[in-house]
């Protein structure tokens, strides 16, 4: 473990960004990843520990012109309890309901889940299906500079993101799905609570006259990052949702994923799970 020389807990975003601009700092939110990872020696602390929990403007769910904006410090529990998420983005709510334990959901933040960039991160799969972007802020010569990046581009590899060291993830922005939207989320692990997913998947789209339009499929834990299965999405968007098309979509998804073998499941088993669960979910949407 490395030593922390300085600890700062600013109350405003501008102050936090000044700290990030002035030298290497480790960002602390809920700590549910940072504490065990630093103890295990998997992450080294930068000289400054920057606790962002005091920045209230980074907390909460609000409507915005593009849909919904979720502050980076919003906890998984707050997401679970939010009426807008429940009514308009149920796929995200379902994923939060499958997230760890009550104690962890109370501490874990959305921003921490995204910046930790685990291939199995539970909020990533529904956010990919919703077409979410992340909002990153940094200190510029004339004040706060913000940039937006699609979540799929932000996730670079296991534990790796496109965040620059002087940036803070401040929010997630997602369009709210249109009328007629259907979605499904499934997480598969050995036990219901506290389990890192063996695989997770989400499907979304607008059901119109037997077609799943603007179909979206995302997977967790079957590639170096959570991913969209664009080829399978294209197959689904091309015509009526029937058994033959579902078979072709499953084949296309199989070509996209790159599962590993680890303690939770073998490569072969993960592929079997993807085949069976994707087929089950699409059949379910088809019959709806």
């Amino acid at each position, binding site marked *: 473990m490395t030593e922390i020389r300085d600890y700062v807990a600013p109350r405003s975003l501008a102050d936090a960004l000044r700290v990030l601009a002035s030298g290497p700092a480790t960002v602390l939110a809920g700590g549910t990843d940072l504490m065990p990872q630093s103890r295990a020696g998997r992450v080294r602390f930068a000289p400054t520990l920057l*606790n962002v929990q005091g920045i209230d403007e980074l907390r909460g769910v609000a409507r915005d012109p593009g849909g919904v904006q979720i502050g980076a410090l919003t906890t998984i529990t707050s997401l679970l309890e939010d009426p807008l998420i429940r009514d308009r983005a149920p796929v995200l709510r379902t994923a939060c309901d499958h997230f*760890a334990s009550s*104690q962890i959901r109370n501490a874990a933040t959305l921003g921490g889940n995204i910046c930790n960039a685990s291939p199995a991160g539970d909020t990533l799969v529904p956010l990919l299906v919703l077409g979410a972007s992340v909002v990153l802020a940094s200190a510029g010569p004339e004040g706060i500079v913000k940039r937006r990046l699609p979540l799929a581009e932000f996730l670079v590899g296991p534990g790796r993101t496109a965040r620059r060291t002087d940036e803070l993830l401040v929010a997630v922005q997602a369009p709210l799905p249109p009328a007629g939207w259907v979605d499904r989320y499934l997480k598969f692990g050995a036990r219901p609570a506290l389990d890192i997913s063996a695989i997770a998947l989400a499907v979304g789209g607008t059901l119109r006259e037997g077609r799943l339009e603007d179909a979206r499929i995302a997977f967790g834990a079957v590639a170096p990052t959570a991913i969209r299965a664009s080829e399978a999405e294209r197959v689904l968007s091309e015509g009526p949702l029937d058994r033959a098309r579902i078979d072709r979509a499953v084949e296309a998804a199989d070509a996209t994923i790159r599962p590993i073998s680890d303690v939770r499941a073998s490569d072969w088993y993960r592929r079997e799970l993807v085949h069976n669960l994707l087929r089950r979910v699409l059949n379910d949407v088809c019959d709806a």
Partner: protein
Amino acid sequence: MSAMLEIEFRLNGVVQRTAVAADMSALEMLRDVLGLTGTKYGCGEGECGACTITVDGRTVNSCLMFAVDCNGREVQTIEGLSATPLGERLNHSLVAHGAVQCGFCTPGFMMQAQQVLAEHPHASREEIQRGLEGNLCRCTGYRKIIDAVEAVAHPTASAE
């Protein structure tokens, strides 16, 4: 050694000032610095719930929380809960239902039971079971613990 910080927070209703290392967990602070050993160290990884405390009214695993992050907050431990009417009822119910064997998990279960009852004052068996998912017990097989919490959630039903 990491930087030492002065922090101030409310602990079981009383203002507490103390110095902690920047990389210390809230669990280490409670047990090793403040001498409150009711909160247990089971796994140190968020898996067992033995270290459950309440921060600003919500339960968290104190082994995953940085002690410095307690600054300015309202913290409750099992020592605080035990002195409340709900704490006493939970305590008696656990004993009456034979839900305590070695007792190592009991403080964590009591803290989390308080959270479940705050969310669902008349929690169903299923709600209790789900709410306690983050707490492990290697002795009782859970049924008696769930029975005990259920009896507190439905006092008249179990009095029959």
